């Protein structure tokens, strides 16, 4: 009988990993999930979910069939409950959560004597777990909450409606609060590790989302003032650690990564012992089709987004009528006044690509103009001669970090909270701070002769001078500012849903855009349904119908 005793090769058993050293390593493996991704199933950046459905971007690529599931997301009408890509995205999030839970199980089994960093590491893992749950929550609303105390055989009994929408937010908030209470301000000087400030920032973000209370139909019914107060206080606490970078561009250049503005970022790396490096795979499809790059032309800014960067003679956004005419050519940018953040965000034919004056973006760099128009995404890419660029045939990307939370974003949460608290006057300087920085971020936006590539004009809001800063106006200004500042970074759709305006906003966008992009012809956003993705049918079936489908998708 001993003849049949054959042990696994190059594998560890449960008992072999139960040491403090291995607990420490399991923590690293959990962090690794932040960068473990691929376009195929699915990007960790939320751009396919947050940008394509918001009117900021089109899918791009070689026609509507190329990564066709993303086409379903952005056209809404043909969405189904059994889209494989959504099921995979859901699964990938729980893969990351399972790594955190695995580490937590080992950590909990060790004593403080054996493992002095026990509480800190546990707080880190709860922070990470909460991050992945937060993203799931944005996408799917009702999700099963799984923690490390539950044995795996019990998971099948955990429903996605065990907690209500509000209770789920409280669970996630409690995780970030635990992390904020137990993490040191500076965690061993290791930039990739969660620390107290990171946790406070994420806590503020979770509170802001939770503050907009929704009913079952995804309609905002109340804005929780207490939560907003806490958002303001938490963002104020961040000021001791973080600051805006001098130039908006620094946030999108690897030379400046981990700068003063970066709060929580995926730490990517190159020449790190892996075959290609641990790169920003979320951007791997999003480079142009010219010889220096070669693939694959995804994530293309919409005409509507480009038009939104128009400014009026007063240097303020053109709130009304911005989309009446299309701003389409490099020449137009010389006359039409614009916010310079446009040229940090969008590649436009005839203008330098990624700040390189003699490297002109051409129509021929675009994958399929006839379907997806003339623009490409800039924030996530790097120059082909940058030391952090790497070709991974047929794709490519860079080791540039990807920010999950940045200080400019946090400042806008604070402004938003203040406005909804009725303290909109206090929000004014915060918003203006971003506008001032934007106005000054033009030194890299020049042509080969050193001349500005656009007629840049951004002016601060001055109550009674160029605007009447009422709550309603402030709200409009804030929502516009979030778009200008954070476009193409994957958050816009979730902003719209949080504000409760996704249906009207997206349908208005579609009604104009479908005339310009015929692939959108049949698209409409279905109110009380499309605010969230359906719970993947496969998961409902695995749960033996214990999971309940989101409203509108039953």
């Amino acid at each position, binding site marked *: *009988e001993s*003849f*049949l005793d054959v042990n*696994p090769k190059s*594998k*560890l*058993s449960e008992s072999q*990993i139960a040491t403090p050293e291995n607990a420490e*390593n*399991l923590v*690293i*493996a959990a*962090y*690794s999930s932040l960068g*473990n*991704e691929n376009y195929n*199933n699915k990007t960790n950046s939320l751009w396919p979910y947050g940008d394509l459905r918001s009117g900021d971007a089109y899918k791009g690529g*070689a026609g*509507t*069939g190329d990564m*066709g599931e993303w*086409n379903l997301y952005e056209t809404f009408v043909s969405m*189904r409950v059994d889209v494989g890509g959504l099921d995979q995205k859901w699964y990938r999030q*729980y*893969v990351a*959560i399972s*790594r955190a839970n695995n580490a937590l199980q080992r950590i909990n089994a060790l004593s403080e004597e054996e493992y002095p960093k026990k509480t800190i590491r546990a707080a880190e893992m709860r922070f990470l777990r909460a991050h992945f749950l937060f993203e799931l929550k944005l996408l799917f609303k009702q999700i099963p909450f799984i923690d490390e105390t539950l044995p795996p055989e019990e*998971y*099948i009994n955990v429903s996605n409606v065990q907690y209500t929408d509000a209770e789920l937010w409280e669970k996630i908030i409690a995780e970030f609060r635990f992390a904020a209470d137990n993490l040191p301000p500076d965690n061993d000087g*290791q*930039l*990739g590790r969660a620390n107290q400030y990171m946790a406070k920032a994420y806590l503020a973000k979770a509170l802001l989302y939770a503050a907009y209370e929704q009913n079952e139909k995804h309609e905002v019914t109340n804005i929780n003032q207490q939560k907003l107060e806490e958002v303001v206080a938490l963002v104020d606490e961040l000021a001791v650690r973080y600051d805006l970078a001098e130039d908006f561009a620094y946030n999108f250049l690897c030379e400046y990564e981990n700068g003063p503005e970066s709060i929580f970022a995926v*730490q990517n*790396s*190159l*020449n790190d*012992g*892996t*075959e290609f490096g*641990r790169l920003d*795979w979320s951007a791997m499809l999003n480079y142009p*089709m010219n*010889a220096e790059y*070669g*693939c694959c032309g995804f994530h293309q800014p919409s005409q509507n987004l480009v038009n939104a960067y128009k400014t009026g003679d007063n240097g303020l956004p053109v709130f009304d009528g911005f989309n009446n005419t299309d701003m389409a050519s490099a020449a137009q940018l010389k006359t039409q006044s614009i916010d310079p953040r446009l040229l940090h965000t969008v590649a436009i034919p005839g203008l330098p690509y990624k700040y390189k004056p003699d490297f002109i973006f051409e129509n*021929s760099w675009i*994958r*399929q103009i*006839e379907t997806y128009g003339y623009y490409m995404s800039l924030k996530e890419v790097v120059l082909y001669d940058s030391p952090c660029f790497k*070709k991974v045939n*047929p794709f490519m990307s860079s*080791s540039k*970090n990807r920010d999950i939370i940045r200080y400019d974003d946090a400042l806008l949460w604070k402004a938003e909270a203040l406005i909804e608290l009725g303290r909109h006057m206090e929000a004014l300087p915060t918003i203006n701070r971003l506008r001032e920085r934007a106005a000054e971020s033009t030194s890299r936006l020049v042509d080969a002769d050193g001349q500005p590539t656009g007629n840049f004009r951004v002016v601060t809001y001055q109550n009674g001078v160029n605007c009447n800063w009422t709550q309603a106006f402030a709200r409009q200004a804030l929502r516009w500012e979030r778009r200008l500042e954070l476009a193409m970074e994957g958050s816009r759709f979730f902003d719209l849903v949080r504000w409760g305006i996704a249906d009207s906003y997206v349908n208005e966008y579609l009604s104009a855009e479908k005339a310009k992009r*015929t*692939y959108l*012809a*049949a698209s409409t956003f279905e109110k009380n349904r499309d605010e969230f993705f359906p719970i*993947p049918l496969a*998961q409902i079936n*695995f749960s033996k119908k214990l999971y309940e489908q989101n409203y509108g998708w039953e």
Partner: protein
Amino acid sequence: QESAIKGRVTDTNGIPLEAVTVAVTETGASTMTGGDGAFVINASVGQTLRFSLVGAEAKTVAIVDTRPVDVQLDINFDLEEVVVTGYQTQRKADLTGAVSVVKMDEVTTQPTGNIMKTLQGRVPGTFITTSGSPDGAADVRIRGIGTLGNSNPLYIIDGMPSTKSMNEIATLDIESIQILKDASSASIYGSRAANGVIIITTKKGQRGSTKVEARISSGIKNYAKSLEWLDTEQRGYVQWQAARNDGTDPNFGVYGFEDHQDAQGNWVLDRVIIPEFIDAAKTMRAANTDWVDEVGRNAVIQNYNLNLSTGGENSKALFSLDYFDSDGTVRGTYFDRLSARINSDFSLLKGRLTLGENFSITKATHDVLGSTLGVTRNIQPIVPVHTVDGVGWGGPVAGMSDRQNPVRLIEDNKQNNNHMLRLFGDVFLDLQLLENLKFRSMLGMDYSFSWQRNMQKTYTSGFMSEPTASLVNYNNRWGNYVWNNTLTYKLDLKDKHHFDFLAGQELISYYSENLQAGRREFTSEDPDYMYLDAGEGAQTNSGSATEYRLLSYFGKINYNFADKYLASVTTRYDGSSRFGSNNPFGLFPAFSLGWRISEEDFFKSSLSFVSDFKLRFGWGQTGNQEIGDFASYGMYEARYGTNPTWDPDNGTAYDINGTGTGTLPSGYRRIQQSNPNLRWETATQNNFGVDFGLFGQRISGSFDYFTKNTDDILIQPPFIATLGEGGNRWVNGASMTNKGYEFLLTYANGTEKLRYTITGNLAGYRNKVTKLPEDVINSYPGNGVDQTILGRPLNSLFGYVADGLFRTPEDVTDHATQIGSGVGRIRYVDVNGNGTISDEDRTWLGVADPKFVYGINFSISYKRWDAGMFWNGLYGGLVNNGAKGYTDFISFFGGENYGTRVLGAWSPQNPDSDIPALSFNDLNDEKRFSTYFIESASYFKLRTLEVGYTVSPTALQRIGLQGVRVFALGENLVTFKKGWGENRYTGVDPETPNSGYPIPFSLTFGTTISF
């Protein structure tokens, strides 16, 4: 002095035989026997008479005087054939299981890398699918799909079990093939026998004089162009038409157009404007490349075999050398193989002890790239193969798909080959302990080594480029040793009761280890330079190992009463290291019964035209252990990084310090949950069979009906996502049933000069999934709610029903609500009648498995000429012709090339077309799986047509040769497919759908020379 010699021919039971040819060897004079078996022929004393009858062993009788000659012929000669049935041999007449014996002379002339390929359609119940690929890959299914995992049969080669393919065994070294289809015959091989057992015996030395046989054959395979893509002008037209249909400007990318609107407002194309160059740098001149032509060729196939056999009083030996070289009809693909074999045995102690060995060594080489046919549609015809300098590569420009120039792929992979060395063989000892008690011990090994040096060169091809050369070396070794010991005892009681006893034990131990190392950045791309040491950039390596063992005990009793009543009982007790600590062993019993009614007196007297009639029944269980080697363990692994090009990185390393470079700290990930209760999967089979022979075996055949229930099927079910990473585990979870039948009929007849045989076979099966864990059901076709795979065949098709196209605006308004509908678009059936086309309208669309497969073989010989023809077909199967996604649509894959069928797309000017209108968008979601893509897989093919000529022996004796045969062979000469009706096959060959490797038409000439 010639005189009239009279006589009578009967069978061994004294029954007169009609139509026996009686010939005088010396003069060639011949006659035939009459109904009473009598004959008269003129001959002289001292001459020889030869008596022959189809199906019987011929006899020669010397004429010693002029008295009448009475001769008995054994018409059951065929039934006396000895068949290997599992650690022992049996007379065919005594078989009680479902065993097919392959007629080797029908299959050995085809030059092929894999003998199983030639059996396609010939053996009822053995379903073989192949492609035209030169590597000889063949998918072999015995009695259909019996399990949800690996359904490959078990091969037993000279007593050595193997689950590898037959690619490395020289076809001409094979002496016989038997296929054990039912459980009662296969269960002696217990473990791994659930998918059927194929027993292969290689040639052995023969007693008598030394014999040398040489065979040479060489042929040419014709490139069967099975894909038709648009040319440059047509591709332009399609772009124009789609853009005008969509109401957008057609002028984009490399094409421009001149067009106008007619009086009705319809757009009319005047001219497609093709630029001189497709790139701004003017390196690529606009071309009209037929990429399918560019990657194809007519290819040569060669096979040389030398076979030396010798045998004396106490020893026999065979040596063979075989070289097989097959180029593929798709450039860059090839397979060649050199193999040597020595089989020998020595008998000692007056024949009571035999020691011997069978050993072969094979070196095989094949390409790494594989077929580039699928790539030919990705690249547009306007792209030239080369840039204007004739050296650089053409490639995609903006607006085109990011896919490779297939000609570059072929050229740049020329130096990359996969090599394999396989050592296969055994040593054995046969010892006669008592007169009827024999002991046999066999120690065998099957070891393989493979290696590959894969060089990836730098290139620029349009916007595709690779600036860094890289190299990966692979080294794998794997295999097993087998040790088995058997005792056999023969017992005959009162001359009527015959017993065979067998008891045995077997050990199998398998181990595999692999190694991979890579390097980037090389200063030269010369193959003489590109070795790992020469690299200057990043280094990568990986390696792993695996192991399993099997331990088995088995026994068998065969009983034969007076050749009339037959019975057999088998049991096997198998242990596998793959199962959990709680259930390593499984017990697999079987029995079978046979009744040779034709041996009964009442039968003989009343139905004398029936020469053989046997009823068979068998019941048995077989096991399956095709799961991961460590399937029962819970496991974690260190995984620093994985290649994230096509799948997400699953690494465990992270730049926690934020330094952006350098060695990273790394951890572990869970890869599997444990299941210590895992146990053997078991298939239970019933087999009812009839063997029959009529008119002295002129007509013979068999019919089998079987049921096969597989329980505890080993699956690794998908799991609820919250389990996260490593949530997978193996379980015994599913059940399925198979029912089927096999029919074989042979008619053989002829005279001394003209002989002919016709053999037909027909087989079909249906399977049904009867049990699945609830959370797994949705991994199979169905809607997850009320429509599931349970109670249906595994290969059921589920989707929407396409009901032609909307042809008028009224068609659209009259129809149920269908998002994206419009004139020229596909209309889907509102199956549930709720007025809206949605998910609930999906339904069962058919079953992919064929209703039956069949084959018919004709062979005829006249004097020294022989000819054979083999037809084979498949009826009633369905294929998901996914290729329609690019032969009928341009919206699914943007920027590529498309099939010529799109030229016939629906338009107001072409209102009768069934192909949807051209559009760059798929607003109607026509990509959804529907009957639009389901087509008939039925075909009927002339597989082989062969003509041979054997040179006269007397002519050869003068030059010292014993025999020479020359032959010409054509393969795949004619194909019929279903070209009509709703589900007509729209591609070229339904056997290789979806850019599959086309099966070439080929012509081979060869000769066999024996000394």
